[in-house]
């Protein structure tokens, strides 16, 4: 087994991430994202199971009517790349490990229930916000979009407000 290397300097990693985002602007004329990949695959899967059900939702139908359909969504392919890039980086640094990461005071089951609940809330929030930390905070933030900065400030506010209530899960 390879030795596990420490994480990079956060500023260096942040500047690298910023250059990747800048490359997306220069190459594609758009930024990064994540929640759009979930939305497009949700639309594609719903349409595969029940086309009328998918068409009856204006939100899902938007992804179905996009050029090339829901499975040629740009963010879906970008997220496939994220999975590969994350895997390669962790592999080369000796950080691949099957585990459930949790605070010391809760069980694996509680941690997974919280992960599911947190994911559902973020899914709801990301629909209304039209993006998440990647598509709004990073992409729109660097382009100085008012809605993106509003989203970012409210996301931090929401997290700091709820943090004392779930302290047991993490500390």
């Amino acid at each position: 087994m390879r030795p596990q290397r420490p994480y990079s300097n956060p500023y260096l990693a942040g500047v690298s991430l910023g250059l990747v985002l800048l490359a997306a602007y220069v190459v594609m004329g758009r930024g990064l994202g994540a929640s759009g990949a979930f939305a497009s695959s949700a639309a594609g899967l719903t349409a595969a199971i029940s086309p009328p059900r998918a068409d009856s939702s204006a939100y899902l139908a938007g992804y179905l009517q996009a050029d090339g359909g829901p499975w040629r969504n740009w963010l879906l392919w970008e997220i496939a790349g994220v999975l590969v890039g994350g895997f390669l980086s962790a592999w080369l640094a000796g950080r691949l490990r099957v585990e459930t990461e949790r605070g010391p005071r809760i069980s694996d089951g509680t941690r997974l229930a919280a992960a599911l609940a947190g994911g559902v809330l973020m899914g709801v929030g990301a629909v209304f916000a039209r993006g998440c930390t990647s598509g709004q905070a990073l992409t729109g933030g660097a382009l100085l979009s008012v809605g993106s900065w509003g989203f970012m400030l409210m996301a931090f506010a929401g997290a700091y407000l709820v943090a004392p209530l779930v302290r047991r899960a993490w500390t």
Partner: protein
Amino acid sequence: MTPLYEFGAFGDTGALVAAVCIGIAFGWCLERAGMGSARKLAAQFYLTDLTVFKVMFSAVVTAMLGAFWLGRLGVLDLSRVYVPETFLAPQLVGGLVFGAGFVIGGLCPGTSCVAAATGRIDGIVLMLGMFLGVLGTGLAFAPLRHFYDSTPRGTFTLPALLHLPYGGVVLAVVVMALAGFRGAEWIERRRSAEGAGA
């Protein structure tokens, strides 16, 4: 002239190849920073490890300065770069709900993919939750649509809001970020001193 895709340098299949390449670099950077670790991300909200703030804001400042200067030098046509449109009320409320989910789940949508790819079960489960949240909201969309479409402001930027020049806002964000980094280092030093004393 760039953006390359907007000026027809390659087609739609090329765009998907670019998506995978950019995604690999994105995932790589997140993993290197330690952003695939839920405990590390959650620590941001207990002020014991401010990596999230440092990574996010150095990325925003870097991309913001790059876009500004490439635009000024005439390399990048900023009118062809898509700025996310503003819908004020749903984005503020969505942000609040999203933030609550972030500290409960410990990962955001992008970082959950990195966590999942590196073997973390909590990352896989969070991805599933995220998928269900988006799917559920999508299926229940009809009564929510009115709020979703409310307070539209189109492409609306901070320079337009504040009636300040683009370069002035860029400079202000850089100054705020540098002050924020100093503050973050100070908080972390204080926290680790407290920890050593305890």
